[in-house]
């Protein structure tokens, strides 16, 4: 089983409501789900879509061809009809679209009429549509009914009833009318969890004990803020919307200095404003975590679309020289664990950690059996209460064997915790002295970085162990490239080398041989200048010659990428 459903229409028409409900129904049925969204920078109108893929085996990307196209406007038909598979169906309501399409695979259902008749409100049109899609798929509607009950019960029994009726009406009419619907779903199994990249970061942060989150809203990072704010009460987290990104990063630095784990999230433009603060965290050795959800630039760019073009900017962000950690998870699962690792390492080494995602990963939803909570790490590296009190002669920036100084909590004892954005001595007082300066630089850079490198995992190899064709990628491309490898593995000895722990590079470098030994190496990036390949060259000396780039704000699709890889392979001859 491998079906894709696309819901298209204007912003504000309820695309997201329908899509989210379907995705949840499917995961509850135990199917694997993958969804991604495409939307414009406007609240009403324009053209948006939500694409859901379901399968009985794990899936990691959307596909080009769709089985059901739900058209909430005419534009959706013009733009997406050609994506239909042969047995594909279009669901629409001619009264809404003000046009009838006399085609065999077009199912014209009076969604609005049913909504008014059974639900009593035109807003119920979404519920009718959900029912109709479930009907078209020939799926047992019970899970849908349950979800409706669960969703609306807070709003009163009447609304539950009305929605149930509306859904049922859609469901039944679709079963009756869609004569050519021939979809066959697998058996229901264990429910799966469904989680987006943004949610996974939020969840990872909470699982790492984040206590303070401050940010300024910026697409596509706002989902993290929303998620953490929603949990603020249950998890005793302080969230504060800052007046600007400069304030956000300085607030979390203050919070971390005071003794709590703190985080912010933003996108490229906001990150640009945080860069001075990043340098401050570097100098004061204050652990912080920053989520940088990329979108196409420069400047405002395409604010609701995707790109991964801030890698080198993030890597070298901040004036002066100080270590930082860069992670770029490939999926929500990695996002969850890497957020945890970012918090752990940031605090262990007292450096800023950046989690790089992009709009594609931030908003796409993946399904999993579960996350393994035993893999989480929580060590409190701070000196609190008695362990601080009993120290004699505390110095915040003391020189030590590891370069890591004791991180005390101000106010917890009579020891004073002092730090400075100026170069400082061990106590934290500002200095002009050349010798101390040198030792401080050595401590921050040369002592810590080798230790940090020991903590970093090498890239993930997926596919052939000794590939002829090696596809290199990083961050959110994981799922797409993985499916490409699956498809190409019939014809090639192919593998993907995926980087999620981007910087510093791991000590373990045996994988470099894979690159040197493969017949063809192709670097794939969601940007125009192949930034990761540059970093790879710097760290390993290996220069990759073939690159596939996409930078129009849309994610690669599996089919397109497969073709481009094929083409790049052929070019060799």
């Amino acid at each position, binding site marked *: 089983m491998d079906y894709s459903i696309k819901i298209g229409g204007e912003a504000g028409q309820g695309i997201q409501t329908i899509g989210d409900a379907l995705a949840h129904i499917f995961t509850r049925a135990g199917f694997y789900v993958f969804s991604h969204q495409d939307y414009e920078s406007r609240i009403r109108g324009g053209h948006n879509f939500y694409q859901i893929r379901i399968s009985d085996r794990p899936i990691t990307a959307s596909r080009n061809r769709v089985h059901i196209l739900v058209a909430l406007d005419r534009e959706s038909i013009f733009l997406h009809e050609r994506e239909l598979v042969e047995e594909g169906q279009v669901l629409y309501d001619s009264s809404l679209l003000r046009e009838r399409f006399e085609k065999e695979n077009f199912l014209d259902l009076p969604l609005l009429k049913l909504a008014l008749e059974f639900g009593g409100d035109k807003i119920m049109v979404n519920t009718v549509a959900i029912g109709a899609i479930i009907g078209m798929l020939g799926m047992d509607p019970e899970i849908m009914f349950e979800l409706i009950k669960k969703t609306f019960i807070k709003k009163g029994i009447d609304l539950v009833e009305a929605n149930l009726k509306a859904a049922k009406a859609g469901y039944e009419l679709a079963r009756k009318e869609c004569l050519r619907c021939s979809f066959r779903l697998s058996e229901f199994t264990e429910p799966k*969890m*469904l989680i987006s990249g943004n949610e996974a970061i939020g*969840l990872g942060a909470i699982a790492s004990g984040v206590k*303070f989150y401050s940010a300024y809203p910026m697409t596509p990072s706002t989902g993290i803020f929303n998620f953490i704010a929603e949990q603020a009460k*249950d*998890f005793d987290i302080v969230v504060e919307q800052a007046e600007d990104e400069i304030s956000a990063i300085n607030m979390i630095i203050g919070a971390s200095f*005071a003794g709590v784990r703190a985080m912010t999230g933003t996108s490229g433009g906001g990150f640009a404003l945080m860069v001075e603060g990043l340098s401050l965290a570097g100098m004061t050795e204050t652990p912080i975590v920053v989520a940088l959800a990329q979108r196409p630039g420069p400047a405002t760019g395409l604010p609701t679309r995707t790109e991964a073009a801030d890698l080198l900017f993030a890597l070298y962000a901040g004036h002066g020289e100080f270590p930082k950690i860069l992670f770029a998870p490939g999926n929500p699962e990695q996002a969850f664990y890497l957020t945890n690792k970012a918090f752990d390492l940031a605090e262990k080494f007292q450096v800023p950690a950046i989690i790089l995602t992009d709009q594609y990963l931030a908003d796409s939803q993946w399904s999993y059996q579960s996350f393994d909570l035993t893999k989480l790490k929580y060590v409190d590296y701070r000196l609190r209460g008695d362990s601080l009190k009993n120290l004699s002669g505390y110095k915040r920036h003391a020189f030590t064997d590891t370069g890591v100084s004791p991180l005390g909590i*101000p106010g917890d004892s009579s020891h004073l915790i002092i730090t400075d*954005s100026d170069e400082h001595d061990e106590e934290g007082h500002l200095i002009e002295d050349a010798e101390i300066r040198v030792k401080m630089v050595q401590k921050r850079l040369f002592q810590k970085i080798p230790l940090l490198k020991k903590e970093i995992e090498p890239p993930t190899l997926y596919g052939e162990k000794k590939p002829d064709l090696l596809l290199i990628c990083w961050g959110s491309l994981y799922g797409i490239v993985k499916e490409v490898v699956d498809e190409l593995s019939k014809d090639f000895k192919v593998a993907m080398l995926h980087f999620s722990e981007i910087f510093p590079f791991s000590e373990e470098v045996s994988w470099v041989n894979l690159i040197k030994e493969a017949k063809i190496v192709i670097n794939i990036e969601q940007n125009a200048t192949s930034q990761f390949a540059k970093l790879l060259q710097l760290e390993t000396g290996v220069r990759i010659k073939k690159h596939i780039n996409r930078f129009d704000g849309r994610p690669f699709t599996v089919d397109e990428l497969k073709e481009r890889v094929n083409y790049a392979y052929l070019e060799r001859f």
Partner: protein
Amino acid sequence: MLTLKDFKGQKPAWCPGCGNFSILRAFNEAMVELELAPHEIIIVSGIGQAGKFPHYTRCNTFNGLHGRTLPVATGIKLSNHQLKVFAIAGDGDCYGEGGNHLLHTIRRNPDFKLLVHNNQIYGLTKGQASPTTLRGVLTKTQPFGVMSEPLNPLALAVALDCSFVARGFAGEVTHLKWLIKEAVKHKGFALIDILQPCVSFNKVNTYQWYQKRVYQLDDSYNPEDRKLAFQKALEWGDKIPLGIIYRINRPTLEEQIPVLKKEPLVKQKPKIEKIKDLLNNFY
């Protein structure tokens, strides 16, 4: 018993005669009289001559970036509201580079105190105009003289309904000490703008210039009246009022956050074990 000795810090790198010395004395004396021990207080400062302040007393210290004292202090206060938090900034620092944070910190009303060492000049960078420099003053970067209206921090603060607005003068240490103590006793965000002669670069607003003009508000003045406060805040010229210009009770940021009701955030252990329940929401 605490004494001034407990607040003896590094040797100040300020110019002899600088107004900052008196502010330092007033601050240290206020701490002694309030019986606040060095480890109970924390100073967040920016960059500038004023920014060096915490090194010259003894306290927990975050000497951060130019202009960014207030968000750091807010982050600290929200994470540990038992600490007595002070933000110390220069006029360039706080009204120039950091102006936006001032607006929004006043709106939030966290219970910490801001001391602005207002020498009406950029001291550390050698004498450019600050937002409070008077019109017409010539500097190397204002070759035709300052053309902008000087910023009136007190009027601004009153307009934003700041919970405690005061003006002190480095030349009146006892009064300044009293202001600092009043600010600490007051619950809510306090702005004390301190007139601070810069003997090296401000040749207009000298000790004498201030001394000729300043006067202390007496008991007949009611700082609770916002409209009156606004008028008083506008008074600047032959007579410059010192004292509490405006004071009002507003809920502080910390006391409105339910999470902080029980105890300071830093004392609350993360509820990591509850993550399982949260994970279940995703099914």
